[in-house]
């Protein structure tokens, strides 16, 4: 399934690139300003590390197509998470993303009788549509860049998820993201409202014995630009709490993002993921590398 989808995304990207090449033989280089396409958040959308932003992935502008691929490693006290994926931005208007997450339970898996290093995996198909505004250039207007997004998630461990009280092994998040760069302050602010029933982003299924319908969650991030290439910031993401056996906490992080060129960005963060299943205070590092084409 994931392979076929990957193929589809690549095919779409290639077709679009060819169309673009034939339309404009002297294609100019990718047109967005450095770092203004954001980095890849853990579910594959363009954004910060944990939260999606209203920006469209890649460096493509109104008549260009941009794409990127990412790999992220989150290492907290009792678990680690690997995430990787691709995103394509079409004409700075529409974003299509595909990501896969693997959550390794390390010793907790053994304690729960699942086996040491038992992993929960899910794949995420994301789409994002820019509705209005330009986060970077509309400096004289008060309204932000606004985008509507959707993330459809499918978890591989349906039987286990039902055993721990989740309603379903698949679910869809809807979100509205607002992003604005305040250039005079060198500050990028972002707020996202997500309508979701995903437990731990979906790694622990969707809905549960404590709540089976979607709830509205808020996600915030702020980035202070130190130079064209370097930004530091913080993120906060509220989460639902649907599973009786596993209390879920809000997430937050402090990050530094560096883009040595338009082809590469590296994000390093310190994250606090709170309680996950039977392990409290899950803190550690987050490292993400993104290559843009």
């Amino acid at each position, binding site marked *: 399934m994931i392979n076929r989808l990957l193929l589809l995304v690549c095919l779409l990207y290639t077709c679009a690139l060819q169309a673009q090449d*034939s*339309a*404009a033989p002297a294609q*100019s*280089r*990718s*047109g*967005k*300003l*450095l770092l203004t396409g954001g980095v890849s958040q853990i579910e594959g959308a363009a954004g910060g590390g944990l939260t999606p932003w209203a920006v469209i992935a890649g460096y493509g*502008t*109104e*008549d*260009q197509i941009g794409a990127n691929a990412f790999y992220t490693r989150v290492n907290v006290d009792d678990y680690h998470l690997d995430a990787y994926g691709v995103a394509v931005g079409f004409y*700075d208007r529409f974003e299509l993303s595909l990501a896969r997450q693997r959550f390794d339970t390390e010793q907790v898996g053994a304690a729960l009788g699942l086996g040491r290093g038992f992993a929960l995996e899910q794949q995420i198909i994301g789409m994002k549509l820019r509705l209005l505004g330009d986060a*970077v*250039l*509309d*400096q*004289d*207007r008060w309204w932000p860049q606004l985008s509507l997004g959707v993330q459809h998630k499918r978890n591989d461990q349906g039987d286990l998820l039902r055993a721990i009280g989740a309603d379903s092994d698949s679910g869809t998040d809807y979100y509205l993201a607002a992003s604005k760069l305040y*250039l*005079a302050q*060198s500050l990028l602010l972002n707020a996202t409202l997500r309508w979701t029933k995903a437990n731990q982003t979906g790694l622990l299924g969707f809905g549960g014995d404590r709540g089976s319908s979607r709830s509205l969650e808020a996600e915030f991030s702020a980035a202070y*630009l*130190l*130079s*064209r290439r370097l930004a530091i910031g913080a993120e906060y993401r509220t989460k639902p709490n649907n599973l009786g056996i596993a209390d879920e906490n809000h997430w937050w992080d402090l990050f530094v993002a560096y883009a040595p060129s338009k082809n590469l960005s590296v994000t390093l963060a310190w994250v606090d993921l709170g309680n996950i299943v039977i392990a409290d205070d899950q803190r550690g590092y987050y490292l993400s590398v993104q290559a843009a084409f």
Partner: protein
Amino acid sequence: MRTICSSILFALALTGSVAIAQDRVIPDPAPAHPELRPVLIEDFGGMPGLLLLMDDFMQIMLEDPQLRPFFEHAEQDRIKRQLAEQICVILGGDCIYSGRDMVESHRDHIITRADFNALVEALQVAMNNKGIPFRAQNKLLEKLAPMYREVETPREMRPVD
């Protein structure tokens, strides 16, 4: 039903014409921001500093394959002087901008968003070369960024391939 449809169409036509009318109001190419005067004096080195910055800026653009076509056959000295004047006025200096508005001065070129952003990047590199602090750079860019609306060629006026 027909009345509803025609009123919707009428409303759309009305908003359309209003939008077109608004497009004709071309903003001041050099709006003065007296509060930025310290930025001009301390960070950009006043008008002499701006003239030196523009020398560097033009050189960077002429070395850039994407930007060179817009400037290689242009009156570079006039453009540099008028850009310095324009920035001087915007940053609250006692200068006079002698150039045209941003629609008029870009009329002869087909300019895309990618071109606009490439120019911003060239300006950022030039400002870095001159040691202008990043925060001061951004205070100027904040005022220049919205000019993309006048500088870029409207889509309907671009040649169809």
